[in-house]
């Protein structure tokens, strides 16, 4: 078992038993992650002329969407408030004009990601106190294991069987994934000093500004009309 797997089993297991709501949240987030994976692969379909690869990508997309549905259904069953149906944001992993090299690098990243998710899902399944959730993790994990092997085959085809190139791309994708995991983990920690600073500004500045803020919110229709009129006039004003 990897160190990461151990951490997941110990800390996630503990957190989910202490606060079951966190498991619901995690299931919902996994649904978003799976949906995102599907969408990233979908974006790649239009970039290749290879029909076999397009077919493979399409099937892979459908499986990721199916996993998203499994996770969201499990989350929905446990939820006490409306979960987010769709992911809040998506950053495209492949550019709209990607060339063959970029497509191969994308597949290396997908391959490494699938391997990582496969391992993680097994750890999450072991950590989960809920039978339903465990079943979903294992079901999705099994598919991801197959995707890990399939994407390696695709990568080999894309590099014309050049094993060194595959190894190099996979290694670079591994580091990119680690950097991303580290950056995600640090995100919350990084927010702490910002919030402390904002808290201080809010405490002092807010005390002074509260009254004038409340006055500004009492502006009349007439004042509002005059201000917006000026802004519209200023917009249409042609600079000399």
């Amino acid at each position, binding site marked *: 078992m990897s160190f990461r797997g151990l951490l997941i089993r110990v800390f996630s297991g503990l957190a989910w038993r202490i606060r079951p709501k966190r498991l619901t949240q995690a299931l919902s987030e996994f649904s978003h992650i799976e949906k995102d994976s599907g*969408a990233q692969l*979908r974006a790649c*379909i*239009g970039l290749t002329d290879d*029909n*076999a690869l*397009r*077919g*493979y*990508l*399409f*099937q892979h*997309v*459908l*499986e990721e*969407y*199916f996993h998203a*549905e*499994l996770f969201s*259904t499990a989350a929905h069953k446990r939820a*006490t408030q*409306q979960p987010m*149906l*769709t*992911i*809040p*944001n*998506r*950053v*495209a992993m492949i550019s*709209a004009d990607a060339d063959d090299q970029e497509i191969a690098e994308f597949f290396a990243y997908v391959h490494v990601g699938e391997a990582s998710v496969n391992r993680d899902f097994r750890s999450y399944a072991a950590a989960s106190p809920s039978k339903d959730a465990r079943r979903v993790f294992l079901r999705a994990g099994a598919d991801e294991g197959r995707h890990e092997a399939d994407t390696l085959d695709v990568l080999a085809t894309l590099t014309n069987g050049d094993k060194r190139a595959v190894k190099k791309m996979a290694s670079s994708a591994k580091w990119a994934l680690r950097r991303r995991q580290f950056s995600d983990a640090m995100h919350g920690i990084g927010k702490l000093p*910002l*919030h402390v600073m*904002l*808290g201080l*500004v*809010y*405490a002092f*500045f*807010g*005390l002074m*500004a*509260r009254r004038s*803020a409340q006055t*500004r*919110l009492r*502006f*009349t*229709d007439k*004042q*509002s*009309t005059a*201000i*917006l*009129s000026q*802004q*519209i006039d200023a*917009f*249409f004003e*042609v600079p000399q």
Partner: protein
Amino acid sequence: MNILGVSYGYHDASAALVVDGSLVFASAEERHSRVKHDPSFPSSAIDQALKHAGLKPSDIDAVAFHEDPINKLSRSMVSSLSGWPFSFSSFAATAQEAIQNSFWVAADIATHLGIDSKVVHSVPHHLSHTAMAFHGAQCSAAAVMTIDAVGEWTCSTITKVKKTPKGTQYQLCHASPFPHSLGLFYSAFTAFLGFRVNHGECSLMALASFGEPRFKDEVEALLHVTKDGTHQLNLDYFDFSSAKNLPINARFIQSFGAPRPFKSPLVFSAFGDATDTPCEDQRRYADVASSVQYVTTAAVAAYAAKAHKETGLKTLAYGGGVALNCVANAALLRQGRFERVSIPTDPGDGGGAAGAALALSDKLDAPSKTQVAIGPFLGSIADADSAESILGALSPEKWHRFSLLSPQPLAADGLKWERLSDPAEVIARAIALIASGGLLAWVQGRFESGPRALGGRSILARADDISVAQRLSKRVKLRAGFRPYAASMTQGAAERLLFLEPGGDYRKMQTAAKVRPEHAHHIAAAMHIDQTTRPQVVSPTEQPHFHALLVASGKAMGEEVLLNTSLNEQGEPLVASAIDALAMFARTDLDALVINDLFISKERNA
């Protein structure tokens, strides 16, 4: 002159392109990113806009952003500080938004396109809506009314707009200040009734038809419509300064009872076939919804009356998110003050980019510019070849694996597709399937701008068979039973089936209409419990292929009308590309998919 319109940062980010005064492309980012109401930078929509017009970023002469980010920031900051010391979370969110986005909008856009930030212009939010509504109306002068949640400091406006030899002139007559917003009022009740804000407003409107407005007086205590037609919120009931999910307080709950909890059932059915009786709480939710809709309708009508009085014009062009409320829009028509009421296909923030670009075009383009009429089909084109190229990759018996709904497995040779070179053959096959009770995904050409499916990305079915609509709700759309479907029909069918109001533009599905009782059976599956429907009257000149389909439906099924609903799964944006359509076809219980001339059908095991 090439003007790119851009909007992002809150919800429904979008991009639009105006070339020499004409709007040639408009699309929400969600269609490409597949994130519903995606607020992020619309890079994919911009790429598609440029690709459509064959332009490079360096060909862009000017960029219009749909609002003034600093002005908006000042309002958010003031709003959060007014709630000191209980509004830290809202303050922190505003401050982070400022640090990450508000100050850098022009620079971000310029960096993305590789152009000079000096060509990026901020257009006041309500001016963007006004320009969209006015140019969509295709007239020489109009009273333009915009009603929104909030844009910068303003919630609703009335503007007199006219075309002159010197260009388009905008004369603002009235602006109501934040927080006196009809949009925020409606959204607060949307959240109270357990629906998602900026998403579930249509559910509130649908639920309203099952109730009685017995809370009318209580709701009027929250939203006061003045004698001169403006509206004011009673802020004793709301809390807009903190970042709470429910922007209401204890006093609000005292008046209306506990909010509807998540997962609490709503047994109402738009088809009138509910098997359970609603409990007291469910009746309360429906009655609150009905009261809110009643007061909203009255407020919209009063503000329109003010617009008429202030401008003295005969045409009303109406924009902003509240313009999607088709029940209030029907009341506007019944009011009969204006000879004509025009609402664009995307009056809300999704149309902000197009509106901003049109407003900037009014400023920068020559006054003599010629404008092409703004139609609804402003998105990317569907590419049937891309779908056909991957059809052989999946073995038909595996298709059922990809949905939790597990439709009946297909026969071994159950997935069939062919290209039909004769458009009449496409129509004949489509109608045969629909007439036999099938569910057809209909993908044709460019996709629609805005939330309504108008025959570009639609699911079509018999309008006279409730069992077909029930299968659609349960096996494809996963849709709550209280939400009705809409219908597309020819002008002749509309005149036979509906009570049409004079002056109404029924081409864009923006207005509800009462169904004539003697013909209700023709449209039973697309009719709400209150005997109304949201019709799209299809023009033979604007949409000849879709019109021909409707005429064929008349020959096959007795009336030129079809149930028409958006081609999307639950929680997903409207399908854009052929591949997205194919993915939905694989995952749901749709029977056939037509992409331009490509006809794909499933044949199931007996």
